[in-house]
């Protein structure tokens, strides 16, 4: 009932047939995580006139996770990770995911502190 992502990974099959090698306009809709990973974290960093700090990317992904599906929709889909997320629930269990979440949150908090300390100045290539 609560199996997470039972079955195939989300981004299967976006491969091209041989010979069809040129980059075409989105042969199949790419997985959003892949697109975000590239447009937010890769690509050339040239500071424009508008300063926006995409170093906040990790914060952004937390929010993305929270927004990936509305709670009702997610429950329908059998996605229940928020139950294990200490940020969102007190029912968190003492399991591996819990630990890795805590670890991740700790890292993020450190990163936020570091960012705040550096006052969010400037851009940086990943």
């Amino acid at each position, binding site marked *: 009932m609560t199996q997470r992502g039972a079955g195939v*990974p989300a981004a299967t*099959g976006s491969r091209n047939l041989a010979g069809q090698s040129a980059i075409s*306009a*989105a042969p199949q809709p790419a997985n*959003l995580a892949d697109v975000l990973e590239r*447009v937010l974290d890769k690509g050339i960093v040239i500071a424009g006139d508008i300063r*926006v700090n995409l170093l906040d990317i990790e914060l952004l992904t937390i929010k993305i996770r929270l927004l990936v599906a509305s709670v009702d929709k997610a429950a329908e889909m059998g996605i229940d990770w928020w139950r294990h997320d200490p940020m969102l629930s007190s029912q968190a269990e003492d399991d591996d995911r819990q630990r890795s979440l805590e670890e991740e949150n700790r890292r993020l908090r450190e990163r936020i502190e570091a960012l705040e300390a550096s006052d969010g100045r400037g851009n940086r290539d990943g």
Partner: protein
Amino acid sequence: MAESTGRYLYAIGRGIPPAALEAEAGLGEAPLRVVEHRGLSAVVSDVDLEEYGEEGLRRNLEDLRWLEYVARTHDAVVRAAAAAGPTAPLRLATVCFDDEQVRRRIDEWHDALERALDRVEGRVEWSVKAYVPDRVVPAGVPVAAATGPGAGAAYLRRRKEETVRRQQADEVVARDADDLYDALAASAVAGRRLRPQDPRLTQHAGTMTLNAAFLVEDGVDFAALVEEAARSRPRLHAESAGPWPAYSFATLEES
């Protein structure tokens, strides 16, 4: 009032004819334009600074629907440019005040951009991910039962043994992933390992042990190479996606 539109930069390439972009629209359906300067082509469109100014971006980047739209539009424009000539994608949300400022950026970064374009010309990016099913713990270290006196110590010992076993299992899957990466890197111009993605974002099953990007000569059937390499590594499930514009390789410094 002051200028309320800015120029959103999608990519900088070489010899990108505006006609190649006709099938795509920019953000907010604005027409795409090419700013030519010193042999480089910057692909831009006008954006409203209400939405794409500092304040607007800070607000809007928190909105997943907005972010998804911008990310997918950005990617679609970059793809169209990359299909027309060597292209260096820009990081999302690079906004200048006007064309003159765009030309200034090209001046500033000209030589590094040329080098980046040289590096990716005639090449495409492939993404390769490998997964293992959750918790493949190889049999080995026996787990002691915890009963009677000293149960607390036994419990701690058991926890420690579990940790050791888990570490051993992690080492095996990490070796598999390294191995797959090395095998594929041999067929690629360059490779780069990215951080494994979060299952809560991708909803993939199992644990992602490899998230890699490869720069590959255009025309190479890299998907077939991945399939072949994965066949001889049955503990992994590998998948490829591509071709992508060379997002991970068109960097301003040598990688």
